[in-house]
Structures are given as C-alpha cells and as structure tokens.
C-alpha cells in the first residue's frame, strides 16, 4: 500500500509519512479481520469437536512448530533492528539484518515444506482415505490446519517480497535515514505475519 504514498501524486512536493503508515495500519486491520474470520471458524469447530481436535493435534510436530515460532520471533526482531540501523545511518547493518530476516523467513518455509510433506506422506491431507476414516472432527482440524497455515505461508512469501523490494531501495539509497517509512511499513507487515503465527502456534500445535 504504502509504496504509492502521496509523494508521487501529481508530482506535488509532499511526502506524508504518517499518512502512508496509517494506510499500512489500516491494511493490517483488514488482514487481522481476514484471519479473524478463520479464527472464528476454528473456535466454533473446536468448541463442537473438542476431543477430535485434541486427537488430531497429536499428529502435528510440536518441535517443528516451536522451531518455526522461534524463527519468526527472531526474524521479527531483526527486521525491527534494521529500522534502527537505518535511522542511525548504518546502511550496511540495516541490509545485513534484512538479509538475516529473509534467510530466517526462507528457513521457515523450508520447515513448512517438510512438515506438510510429512502430513501428505501419512495420508493426512484433504481427500485422503486415511483422513476421511478419522471422522468429521479430525477432518475439520486438518482442513483448517492446511488452510490457515497455507494462507499464513502465503503471507510469509508476500512479506519476503516486500522486504526484498525495500532492501533494493535501501541499497540504491532511495530509502535513507530521513526517509525510511517504507522500511517501517515492510517491518509492520512482517510483524503482522509474526503476530498471526503467535496465535496459530498454540491453537494448532499445543493442544494436548
């Protein structure tokens, strides 16, 4: 959103950092409500099928879940620190921190890939005979698991794209110590990805 701030409009000399940040926040609100709707679906079905959800959750790998949680939290800290670095005119450190963030994000996806792969291997995917035989409640759990973590992974990819985009601009000195709102916005988006995972993690991996 923020990449089209009022800066370019009609070539007016006016840059509204607060405005583009507000735009980003509003966009984040829509994302929160987007996942919010899914959390409502989740809560209702969990409420209706408590035991099945517990049984199904045992199939999830808590270790991978925890590792991914740590990865996202650390990456959130690194992207936040890169803003401080840029503000202090330390361009090199800022870029390094962004690269670390991207590496962490990528390893999150790699973990996700193996985790999903294992589920498919065990016949725990929508439409699989094994899953179908487990009853409605477990089905609901896995439908929601795939849909919600899948949508979250999609946000991870978008967030990575956003970070790469601003990283290039930092490299070209288009974003500097007195013009860093776009980096802040990329950071805000990345924290949103983290924020959602903070809720996804206990709701899917930690029901015992």
């Amino acid at each position, binding site marked *: 959103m923020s990449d089209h701030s009022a800066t370019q409009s009609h070539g007016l000399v*006016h840059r*509204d950092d*607060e405005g583009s*940040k*507000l735009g980003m*926040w509003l966009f984040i*609100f829509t994302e*929160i*409500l987007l996942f*919010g709707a899914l*959390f*409502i679906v989740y*809560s*209702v079905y969990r*409420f*209706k099928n408590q035991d099945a959800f517990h049984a199904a959750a045992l199939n999830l790998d*808590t270790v991978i879940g*925890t590792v991914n*949680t*740590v990865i996202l*939290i*650390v990456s*959130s*800290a690194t992207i*936040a*620190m890169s*803003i*401080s670095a840029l*503000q*202090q005119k330390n361009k090199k450190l800022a870029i390094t921190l962004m690269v670390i963030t991207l590496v962490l994000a990528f390893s999150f996806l790699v973990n996700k890939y193996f985790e999903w792969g294992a589920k498919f291997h065990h016949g725990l995917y929508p439409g699989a005979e094994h899953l179908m035989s487990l009853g409605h409640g477990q089905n609901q759990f896995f439908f929601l698991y795939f849909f919600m973590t899948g949508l979250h992974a999609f946000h991870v990819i978008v967030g990575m794209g956003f970070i790469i985009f601003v990283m290039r601009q930092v490299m070209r000195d288009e974003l500097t110590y007195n013009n860093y709102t776009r980096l*802040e916005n990329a*950071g*805000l988006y990345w*924290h949103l990805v*983290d*924020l959602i995972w*903070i*809720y996804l*993690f*206990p*709701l899917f991996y*930690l*029901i*015992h």
Partner: protein
Amino acid sequence: MSHDTHEEVHITPYSTYIIILALLLVLTAITVGVTVIHLGTFSVAVALFVATIKGTLVLLYFMHLKFDNKLFLGLVAIVFAVYTAVIAITFIDYLSR
C-alpha cells in the same frame, strides 16, 4: 496537512529489541512447557493468555505503538475490541444452543 508536526524521530535502541526478543522466547518456552502439564480446559485459556502477552509485546515494541502517534494505538485497541465483541456475540449463539 493541517497538522504536519514533525515530531522528533524516535530511534529504538537495539538493547530494547534484544530484551523483548528474550522475553518472547521465554514466553514461547513457557507455553510449550505448560502443555506438558495437563491443565484441562484451562490449557486453552493459558495458551491464549500467553499468546496475547506476546502479541502485545510485538505490537507495542516491534510495531512501535508505544512510541508512535497515539492515534495508531487507539485504532488498534478499537479494532481488537470490535473483533473480540464479534467473537463473543457469535459464541452467544453456540454456548446457548
């Protein structure tokens, strides 16, 4: 444009981020740890409570709500309040069926 006040730029020191990061990691360890102890129905409540603390830390420090324009803090509070109310009202139906 009417209120373009150039506030002083707030630069969060790295140490703040490191402390928050450490707190988040500790809280993650706690949630994972708690699942080992069987708390029954409370386990959901505990998990969500800890998640909310973590979320609040992320919002306040990583997302700068504590230092930014207070407007953002207010809006975030309203949005979460509205969302909580929506869940609560939805559950009025499910809890009383």
